[in-house]
């Protein structure tokens, strides 16, 4: 049994006797994962699906995420919903930097992941993960509200598994992990730099030869 963990058998035995036992980490993560406040901003058509997810039929409030905050100071989650143009990318990175820790990013839809159908265009960023770390990717063009709910649940699972102490503790608890990322500047031909090498790890093409 690792440090800080409760013996499951002992816990269920105690629960049967009417004693409920928890740990600081579980309590902390339980509270965080059930009150994720997203940042209220949409970039393109994916935002319509995000609105539908927040409305009554799909009802993201069931998962504690209905409070869309119009200010980054009060938000925990950034849903990058739509095409990120190169002109918009610095603003998004700046918004992400202004969010307090802990903060998470869902990259929603093909455009936010990779540029999508506009990948070969001159004006669209080829994925927001070039500048900020992304926790959950949702494929789709646009993804259905169920997909966003699934991503939300995945994020809850990730938050639930984050550690409070120890070597692999959560990034926002680690003083060495950065909280701000450099904002790209408008260059003469492209954004400068075109990608942040600390964050962006492009897929490596495995070629058997």
């Amino acid at each position: 049994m690792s440090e800080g963990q409760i013996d499951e058998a002992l816990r269920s035995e105690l629960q049967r006797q009417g004693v409920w036992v928890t740990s600081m980490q579980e309590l902390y993560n339980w509270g965080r994962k059930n009150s994720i406040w997203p940042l209220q901003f949409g970039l393109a058509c994916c935002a319509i699906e995000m609105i539908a997810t927040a409305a009554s039929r799909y009802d993201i409030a069931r998962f504690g995420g209905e409070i869309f905050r119009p200010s980054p100071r009060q938000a925990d989650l950034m849903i990058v919903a739509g095409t990120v143009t190169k002109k918009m990318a610095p603003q998004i990175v700046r918004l992400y930097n202004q969010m307090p820790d802990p903060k998470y990013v869902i990259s929603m839809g093909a455009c936010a992941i990779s540029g999508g159908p506009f990948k070969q265009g001159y004006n669209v960023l080829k994925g927001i993960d070039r500048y900020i770390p992304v926790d959950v990717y949702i494929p789709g063009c646009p993804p259905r509200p169920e997909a966003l709910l699934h991503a939300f649940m995945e994020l809850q699972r990730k938050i639930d598994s984050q550690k409070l102490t120890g070597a692999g503790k959560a990034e926002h608890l680690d003083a060495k992990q950065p909280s701000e990322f450099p904002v790209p500047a408008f260059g003469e031909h492209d954004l400068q730099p075109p990608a942040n090498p600390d964050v962006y790890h492009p897929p490596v093409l495995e070629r058997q030869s």
Partner: protein
Amino acid sequence: MESLEQIKNRAELAARGAKIDIVVNPGPAQQSSLLIDNEHAAAVAQFLRNHPALTFDYCSNATGVDWLDRVIKKTTKVKTVVDGVEKEVDQTIEEKIPGYLEAVYHLYSMKHKHGPLIIRMRTANRTDGARLPSLTPIWRSAELQEREIFDLYGIHFEGHPDLRRILMWDEFVDHPMRKDYREPDDYEWEPTPHDDVLEKAKQHYTPRPQLDGAENVTAQPQ
């Protein structure tokens, strides 16, 4: 609406010295257009807007076209004397047409409910002579679209009240809709390569003849 010839003749009469050509569109749309010389463009536009029978009071669309340098081959039969005998020989003449940029305006009349009338203007060349008179003083709706043409094609509109980039940022120097524009090379591997993406991929990865097929490799000179 009157025919293009009638409009052309009237406009040439109204704007003294104006030289208007009819650019025939042989395609299925058959939307021919008027090519207006830059010097008298404002006068002709004024006439088209104000003449009571025409009243083109609404400019719905303004866009740019990029024409690269091209070569047209014309084959003609020429009589020449070969070995003392007169023969008809095919002679090919290569005509070089220097490139230019074009601005195209689609005009409608709200009053008479007719249109579109398409007018064009051509720049002298694609580099330092890429200048056209602005039609924004005549049709206010052309303001943002002329800014867009300036941004994406690099045509300077003289007389435009607020000529700045509109879609790209101010620090940008290229004109992305020009046909010789090359975007910055930030290739990344993707599973559905198009032809031009494949060409980029070859510059970033060493070719593998036994896996990719020999013809893909020999197509690129190494």
